């Protein structure tokens, strides 16, 4: 149980980082932390204590395997996370070119 709570604490930490930090790069890192905590949570839902790898062969009984589906899902999620991070970093580079700063309180031309 405690491991799930730690995982959600990691999620909350990432959210805190996104909401509170003023540096663009730190916000991107916060999003990375949130992404990873969700990935970790997915893997944990498939975990069985002392379970074995889910490979089915003719001479093996199906006992206590870990769930393979979350592992496949996490592979997809890692790729999506990579795409999102790349997009964000590319935008951050252009923001630095145009505004000369990473401080989001100074990047505020849009209002109203």
């Amino acid at each position: 149980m405690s491991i799930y709570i730690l995982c959600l604490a990691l999620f909350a930490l990432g959210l805190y980082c996104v909401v509170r930090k003023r540096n663009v790069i730190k916000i991107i890192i916060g999003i990375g932390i949130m992404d990873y905590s969700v990935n970790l949570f997915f893997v944990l839902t498939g975990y069985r204590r002392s379970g074995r790898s889910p490979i089915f062969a003719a001479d093996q009984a199906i006992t206590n395997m870990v769930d393979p589906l979350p592992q496949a899902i996490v592979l997809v999620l890692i790729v999506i996370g990579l795409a999102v991070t790349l997009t964000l970093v590319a935008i951050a580079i252009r923001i630095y070119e145009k505004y000369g700063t990473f401080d989001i309180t100074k990047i505020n031309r849009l209002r109203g």
Partner: protein
Amino acid sequence: MQTFLMYSVFILPLACAFLIALLGKKARVAGGVIASLASAALFTISLNFAVLTISQKILICRTERWIPPYGISLVADQFSVFMMALANLITFIVSVYSVAYVRPYTDKWKYFSLLMLMAAGVNGVLVTGDLFNLFVFLEIASIAAYCMVTYTLHPESFEAAFKYAVMSTVASCFILLGIAFLYAHTSTLNMADMAAVLAAGGHSKLTLFVSVLFVMGFGMKAAAVPFHAWLPDAYTKSPATLPAMSSGVLLKVLGIYALSRVFFNVMGMTGAVSTVLTAIAVLTMVAGSLMAFGQTNMRRLFGYSSISQIGYIILGLAVGTPLALLGSVFHIFNHSVAKSLLFLNAGAVEDSYGTGDLRKISGIFCRSKLQGSSQLLGAMSICGIPPLAGFWSKAIIIFACIQAGRYAAGFIAAAVSIFTLAYYLKALTPALFGEAPDGQSGPRVALPSGAAMAALSALVLFGGVLMLPGVTSAIFNGAAAVLSDGIGYAYAVFGALR
């Protein structure tokens, strides 16, 4: 054949996105031509599905010999087919409009590639029967949208894109966490199977917690009010087609469609969720229209008005009676068509005047009849002037609120609709009917853009015809029935497999 067509709704635009990226650098016109042809083909395919679902109710395509709940199945029922036809129609019109609109920009192929990726994501969300697959397609469409915001290379557009990307990614994380909880509870990702398991297990605290995560996540994608901050910024400095796509397609599909699919068909609508959604809807309507009042930028005005109209759609879903759902589905159609028209027109007006500031724009009618009349038609439909369709859908939602005994919500909806008329009149009257600054006509609207705007204007003008009894029952009632069936969706899916 049907299997092939169902896969092609997202494979075709994906393939076109890569094809455009390959050919676009060499052949300049390839991007626009391929994108327009592909979206026209997609619209035809979705009309074909629409005809099929009238007789068969639900179309299912399974992965090879994996029978659901195993494998990722594709499911198209009347609601998703209705949304698919609408989304592909708007995509087609936007891509025709873009052919002339993106001419001043460099690297046009990137633009059309992103447009096709967006179409792939949207169609994938609509056609999938698997909750995680829905998330993946939702991310494809969202990432394409972030990139499209920055296409104009304005400093402000990067600022807006960063805000949009961060908020939307946080929303995606909430949705994903919700999916993880649901998977841990039900051990399945197939939406129909999940609905059956959840219905058998009774209502638990977990579904309530997941509901909160989904309301936050999909609410952010739909720009409901506490989560709306990205929308006006993202609309301001992006290419004018992005707000048209976003307001016409992305908000409706990624936000409203996904929200209603998950809440009605998978988790089952409960009293608590309905109360929360009503509160959000009322807040969205009121705050959206209040914030629109002081706007001087045309696109920001329309953006806040979009937020306010999304409130009406969510209100209809929250009330949840068959009449209210019909109103919601009809309002999705009306708002998509009218708001896309307004944004496409805003792009043309900005090109003609060189600014989007309403204080500097006057006499649109003097300079161009087409721009003036399409702007007037779109605004009239959004405000709800009687012969146009916007009036009927709002009236249905308000009547449904009163019928369901939610007098306060109904009264606020009626008041907001008057307020909408007020801010549109205040903002657009001088712009439309004032004196043109130098008395001469502006640059001519290019042929593809003009044709796109004329087509949307015709849809807005004749949208009211859809209220005729026979037509409504053929189009909107089927879509609304899918939602009012609730978790009967599970039986419909598994029944169709037998």
